[in-house]
């Protein structure tokens, strides 16, 4: 559970929102989109200074001892602003994985620099199918050498440290890899959404150090944390593009009145509001359940995963339609939300997969 109180969490969130409004508005985002790295180092420093890279790391290792509840709140703001960069991969995925290890040395060596933002870490999980399941791991470990390929690795292009999930005999283990080492080849993948940068990484007898105490279950738990952070991102993004759209409906006049006065448009907006509110509720409930370690956590994480993905996609797609021609132009932000929604809908498993997993969880609970 978190060491951060409700009021403190609100303060962190509001501070982050101000930071984003100040340094990561749409113009800044478009500048980052145009860079090769997709990463704003100045913004990253500011984020780290706020302690947001340290949320999931315990105080012993330079962190603030927060929980996924805090992360979810922060990611609602990140989503609203379509924040680019390595926050999810480094501060959530890598921090969760290393923190879960029994490897005191690795923790002492790696966590403080991740907490301070000095080290940017990235986690390679899935193989070329992009399923993010233990069945779809494309890297194998032999002794301290890795071979194979990991795909769709988030923000690996700016990472100082790679954590690689690899098959190891019958099981799964996690390895620390220097992205600059020999035998590691990064291919930056061109994506439709340039606010998230993905890479495919090929390992050819790449030197690696195993991090002790991390097995398949630990990887799955890390993925669930990542899913809830992503759900928060989706809920926040979904709400922001909805708000932008409703504001447009209130002000755009056609046929002598705001187009939000036309009943068909009003009704679409009312239906979308249910999706927006449901996404927020689902993301937060999943965070609470995961933090509490309750038996309902698998159910609520799966629910949040597909409900938030679907809601964000539906709202972002409808936003373009409701704006009409103006949103068909590159300069309008609506398509940026649709792009992100399409990527987010695939990360860590698509909705059909999560619906299936949700039913399994319901079965287990029945």
């Amino acid at each position: 559970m978190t060491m951060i109180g409700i009021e403190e969490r609100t303060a962190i969130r509001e501070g982050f929102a101000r930071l984003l409004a100040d340094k990561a508005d749409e113009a800044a985002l478009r500048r980052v989109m145009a860079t090769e790295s997709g990463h704003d180092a100045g913004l990253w420093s500011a984020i780290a200074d706020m302690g947001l890279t340290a949320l999931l790391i315990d105080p012993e290792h330079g962190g603030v001892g927060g929980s996924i509840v805090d992360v979810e709140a922060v990611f609602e703001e990140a989503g609203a602003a379509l924040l680019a960069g390595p926050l999810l991969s480094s501060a959530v995925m890598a921090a969760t994985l290393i923190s879960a290890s029994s490897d005191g040395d690795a923790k002492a060596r790696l966590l403080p620099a991740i907490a301070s933002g000095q080290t940017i870490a990235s986690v390679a999980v899935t193989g070329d199918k992009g399923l993010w399941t233990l069945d779809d791991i494309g890297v194998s470990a032999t002794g301290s050498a890795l071979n194979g390929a990991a795909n769709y690795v988030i923000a690996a292009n700016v990472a100082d440290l790679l954590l690689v999930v690899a098959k190891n005999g019958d099981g799964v283990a996690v390895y620390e890899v220097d992205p600059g080492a020999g035998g590691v080849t990064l291919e930056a993948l061109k994506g439709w959404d340039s606010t998230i940068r993905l890479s495919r990484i090929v390992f050819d007898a790449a030197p690696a150090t195993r991090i002790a105490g991390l097995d398949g279950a630990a990887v799955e738990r890390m993925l669930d944390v990542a899913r809830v952070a992503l759900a928060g991102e989706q809920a926040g993004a979904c709400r922001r593009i909805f708000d932008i759209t409703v504001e447009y409906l209130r002000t755009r006049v056609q046929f002598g009145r705001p187009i939000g006065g036309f009943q068909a448009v009003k009704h679409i907006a009312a239906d979308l509001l249910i999706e927006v509110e449901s996404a927020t509720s689902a993301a937060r409930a999943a965070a609470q359940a995961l933090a509490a370690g309750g038996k309902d956590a698998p159910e609520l994480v799966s629910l949040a995963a597909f409900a938030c993905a679907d809601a964000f996609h539906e709202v972002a797609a409808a936003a373009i339609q409701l704006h009409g021609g103006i949103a068909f132009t590159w300069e309008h932000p609506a398509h940026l939300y649709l792009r992100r929604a399409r990527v987010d809908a695939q990360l860590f498993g698509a909705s059909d997969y999560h619906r299936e997993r949700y039913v399994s969880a319901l079965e287990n609970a029945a």
Partner: protein
Amino acid sequence: MSSTDIKTEVEAFLTAHWDSEARRPREGATRDWMQKVFEAGWAVASWPREWFGRGLDKDESKIVLSAFRKAKAPGAGQDRTNITAASLMNFASDEDFKREILPQLLTGKVQICLLYSEPGAGSDLAAIRTRAERQGDDYVINGQKVWTSGARTADYGLLLARTDWDVPKHQGISFLVCPMRQPGIDIRPINQITGDSHFNEVFIDNATVPAKNRIGAEGEGWKVLQTALAVERLIMGEGAGERRQGSSKSNVVSLIAIAKEAGKLQDPLIRQKIAQATAYRQLNALNIARAKEEMAQGSSSPIMSLGKLAMSRILHTDAAVMTQILGAASMLDGEAHERAADVNYRTANAYMTSIGGGTDQIQRNIISERVLGLPREVELDRDVPFRTSRAVTG
């Protein structure tokens, strides 16, 4: 009297007369208990002592209510929750009538039905054409009401009737408490597509209502109704979680169990649909829980307005998925085919939520206007004298 004194007194009252373990009065029936609560002034603690209350302020009233809730005892807090009584208290002008009927209402001795909708006034409730004409001390009522539940057992009907036809539709309506047991009132059950007959048509042919039974001034009936409805929405919102959960006991279906029973739980298509249907329900529950939390922290929540529309989708989706699970068996009905009969009932009954009490379309209007602040629907007849509006001229 201090807060502590009130707490002591109400708790002593409860301890003396209410068995909170067994959830029943220590002596007598529930109606005797209600009488005791009423006589002690706890039923409407915020009302003045001369009006059956205790003259408590808001915070003091909350103390009373908490104590009753803790003991799981009914009867307190009716100053808010008994909307009929509250409307009468706040808007009725005749003292004698109020003194006569309020005790009966507050002790649950009389039953009330709603004479609102008409064949020509459904979504557009303000288009009612039932007429109330003043004759001496009475109103003479003629018209037809529909969708009245409990009409047969009700002592009174809350009646919307038109007293002025020469002003716009919202301004000519009066709100009357109509005695139901009189010759001019003919009640006929409506046969529903579910096979039930929960509702009635009420034909009113020269029935009379004493003028003192009017709530609010003549022509002010629409305003009285809106006030009552606003309170009702607030209360429904606050209680939605519990109420839904309560009523959902019989309502919630385990699609998993039905699929297992039908041997289709491993069908990947069925599993996807079960997931989506269950998700709609669970998301709505999570929304309501979050809204209650937000309201407990003092902020208002727009989410409460979404519940009915969301429930409509939940019920229709449940029925659709159950149908798909049952397959050919869904063609059957009757006692010998319990699952089929259940899904058929649900299929039809879902319209009770998507049509009754404001259609989904009206709900979407409300949400988009009140929550999202989008412009109101254009109302062509808003400022037209009712007599010349299309509701009358056709």
